[in-house]
């Protein structure tokens, strides 16, 4: 493993029990993340993106059937820790999360300053004064005026509340932040603002990010590398430069072609059909049914091919 690797995930699985059978939401995911880098996980809804975030943070619902694999954080396998140790040593301290629609999840009866300080009091054992000072520092990083510390969530606009949610994830000084659709409910200008904030945190604090989104155009605002998820599996990983220029997997190509663009002349296209159910996913390549380039071999599960630092799970790339 290279020295700079912050997070290394190997064969991560998260299956749920459901009425009709086992839902294979995360089904053998591998990827790496280096320090001070941002990886975006893109895919359609229902492909297991949010479950992947929950699996990394071990925020599991009660109907878990399988939860296995290896998650190395700074070379230690955090999957070996028991729940209590994980809670005390990893969650918030090392990895924090901005969940989907976090801005609507702020407590309406707490001042936002107190709310942002709370994780530091609980997880870093700070006293209230120090924690509030820390919160104040984070407010400056995300660009919320300091007099907002004494306001309540309902007094803030959507963009400001989203910044507060990001400040809260920063306050415990973690190594990694998992962002789940941080801007999907926001206006264009606010969205651009939030990404400016994230870029600034990345360069000023050396933060690393996992950004989960279905919006490919805005994901390029932060991405150093890209992981494309389809039906519970990662089908392609690679650096952003080469990915956005030329994706390898047929699904990634289709996904890129479906993005409406403001500049340039290409007509966007859509992907025919729907992602498969995660209860009984097809054997073989899971995208085969919708793939314009499928051929005889696609009935077998494709291996993950590594070429020039990129990986792709597709028979087309087998030499």
């Amino acid at each position: 493993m290279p020295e700079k690797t912050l997070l290394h995930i190997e064969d991560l699985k998260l299956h749920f029990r459901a009425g009709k059978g086992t839902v294979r939401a995360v089904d053998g995911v591998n990827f790496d993340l280096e320090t001070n880098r941002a990886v975006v996980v893109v895919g359609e809804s229902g492909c297991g993106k949010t479950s992947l975030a929950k699996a990394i943070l071990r925020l599991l619902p009660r109907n878990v059937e399988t939860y296995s694999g290896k998650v190395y954080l700074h070379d230690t396998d955090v999957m070996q820790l028991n729940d209590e140790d994980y809670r005390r040593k990893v969650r918030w301290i090392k990895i924090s999360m901005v969940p989907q629609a976090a801005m609507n999840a702020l407590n309406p009866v707490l001042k936002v300053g107190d709310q942002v300080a709370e994780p530091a009091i609980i997880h870093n054992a700070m006293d209230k004064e120090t924690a509030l000072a820390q919160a104040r520092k984070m407010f400056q990083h995300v660009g919320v005026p300091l007099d907002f510390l004494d306001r309540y969530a309902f007094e803030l606009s959507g963009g400001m509340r989203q910044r507060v949610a990001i400040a809260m994830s920063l306050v415990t000084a973690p190594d990694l932040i998992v962002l789940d659709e941080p801007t999907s409910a926001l206006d264009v200008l606010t969205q651009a603002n939030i990404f400016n904030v994230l870029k600034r945190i990345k360069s000023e604090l050396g933060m690393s990010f996992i950004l989960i989104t279905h919006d490919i155009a805005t994901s390029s605002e932060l991405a150093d590398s890209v992981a494309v998820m389809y039906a519970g599996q990662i089908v392609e990983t690679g650096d952003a430069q080469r990915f956005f220029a030329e994706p390898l997997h047929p699904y990634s190509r289709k996904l890129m072609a479906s993005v409406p663009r403001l500049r340039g002349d290409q007509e966007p296209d859509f992907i025919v059909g729907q992602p498969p159910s995660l209860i009984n996913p097809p054997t073989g390549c899971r995208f085969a049914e919708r793939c314009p380039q499928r051929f005889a071999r696609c009935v077998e599960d494709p291996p993950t091919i590594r070429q020039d630092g990129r990986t792709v799970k597709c028979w087309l790339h087998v030499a």
Partner: protein
Amino acid sequence: MNTMTGTAQGGGTAVTAAERPQEDVLLSVQDLRVWFELRRFGFGHAGYVRAVDGVTFDLHHSETIAIVGESGCGKSSLMKTILALHRPTAGELFFEGRRLNDLKGQELRLYRSQVGYIQQDPYGALAPFMSVQRILEEPQIINGIKSRSEREARIRNALEEVKMSPVEDFLPKFPHMLSGGQQQRVVIARAMLLDPKLIVADEPVSMLDASVRVEILKLLRSLQDRHHLAVIYITHDLSTVRYFSERIFVMYAGQAVEKSLIDDLIRNPLHPYTMALLSATSDPDANNATRFRDVPPGEPPSLVKPPAGCRFHPRCAYMMKGLCDVEEPPHFEPEPHHLVACWLHR
């Protein structure tokens, strides 16, 4: 305030507004204002929320316009007034020459049957306890289509139009059994049921997955072509507008600040707010990660006490003191069919 005199391209043929006969105007909005009264303790007057404050435009038969703006700029209030859900505070609305301001009873129902509405959130727009068949039958019953066989024929027709076939498979299904894209198709089918002349689509694809978005937009586009519908497409996402409409209005704080053809707007945005919107819209490009976006500081103003003069002046980099913060800019026309409410272009 000037009236929009831009080119109107409908159904692929370009006809300038001057050449169009007046009776070709389907919907005419004249200096429309929609204000909501704020009350203190339930009875004391505490001012107005000026959601729409002086909007003027003409929409021709089989023409598509896009209304773009951030949340809170009044685009939904404008839409709801056009749907006759809100009453205008001032100004006038005409649909095929008939004044809409105080339609009542039978006339109002007739008007509404000619206007289809596509909601933003398809799941929220479909009653969860109704099957697709009932969802599509109800508007027909309300509008007095008595023959059962005619109702069924219309349902079948509408579902085939939105490419939900075989129809039998979908009729007994409930909304939760459908995917997001299919739900939105049912909503579109419902809007098409009574052969409307105008469709109002409020962010029809913003809740959908990227891969389905384009499919739904193309479907709307083909319906519009085939049935010569006029469409008002309301959105905050500039990148989808290009594929859908020819004319575009940019709204800010209750007013239309720029009106033009979409290609002109993208090529040469004139209002500083439009420039900001365009520069904040990203295309997938790895170089985005290395640069910061220019975003005007601050937030849209309160609509209770909007700033004097140009409503964008507190955030504008080109603000001219003594002019922009004092006098409201009229619409200038620096290039043909491209109107902008900004003193920079006087």
